[in-house]
């Protein structure tokens, strides 16, 4: 009898990502550098974004546009996005200059790059649903851009309902999935060593 798909999946998972790799308690010496902290800082900012976003979704605009606490959570959501992008771009610079796709880490690099694009789309729709003069200006400028490339009827930036649903449902789901895969790949392949570093046991990649 052939092995069940559950057993196949379990065996494949255990082979590729055993629990020691998923939850390591030590890291190679070269990880002791501030530049290696920007990935987890990006994740932390994303955590604050998701947490504050869930509160905003539950309470609604009548709360977050008028009450003091609502305005605070709204601002927390906005400013954690600013920090998220600052940390993510510094993380990207660091990984680009150490050629982080080395050692069979192509998929890790690509999921990070696509997550960056998904973040831009999520932030863009977020700016569009502020329902203020800023969002009105951005949407009317962007509308011409999207119309000029022929997607304006399908992706309508002045359609508040469409932008809000993309911002709170679809895009966070995509970004969340990409982030999970990215982090799992980092755990699977190990943190990339600096270009001149000797590979250590944790950074050695199974080929």
């Amino acid at each position: 009898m052939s092995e069940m798909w559950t057993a196949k999946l379990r065996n494949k998972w255990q082979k590729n990502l055993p629990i020691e790799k998923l939850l390591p308690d030590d890291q190679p010496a070269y990880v002791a550098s501030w530049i290696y902290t920007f990935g987890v800082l990006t994740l932390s900012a994303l955590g604050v974004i998701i947490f504050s976003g869930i509160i905003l979704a539950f309470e609604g605009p009548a709360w977050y546009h008028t009450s003091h606490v609502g305005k605070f959570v709204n601002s927390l959501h906005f400013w954690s996005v600013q920090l998220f992008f600052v940390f993510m771009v510094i993380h990207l610079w660091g990984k680009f200059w150490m050629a982080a796709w080395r050692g069979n880490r192509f998929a890790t690099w690509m999921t990070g790059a696509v997550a960056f694009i998904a973040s831009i789309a999520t932030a863009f729709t977020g700016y569009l649903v502020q329902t203020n003069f800023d969002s009105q200006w951005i949407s009317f400028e962007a509308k011409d851009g999207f119309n000029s490339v022929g997607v304006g009827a399908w992706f309508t930036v002045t359609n508040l309902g469409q932008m809000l649903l993309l911002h709170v449902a679809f895009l966070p789901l995509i970004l969340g999935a990409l982030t999970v895969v990215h982090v799992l790949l980092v755990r699977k392949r190990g943190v990339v060593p600096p270009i001149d570093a000797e590979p250590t046991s944790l950074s050695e990649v199974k080929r």
Partner: protein
Amino acid sequence: MTGWISDFMNHPATYLKSGWFQISVTNLLVILLMLTVFTLAILIPFPKDEEESKK
């Protein structure tokens, strides 16, 4: 908003222009801040674990 924050924020952005290229002072400052943080993250030594350094 009152005070210096109001004076600082309640007016259109100042832009720097050079031919086809233009950038707001705010965006330029954010980019410079990020480059500074990036440089410091490479240059500043990471604090060592006390137990590790005793070994």
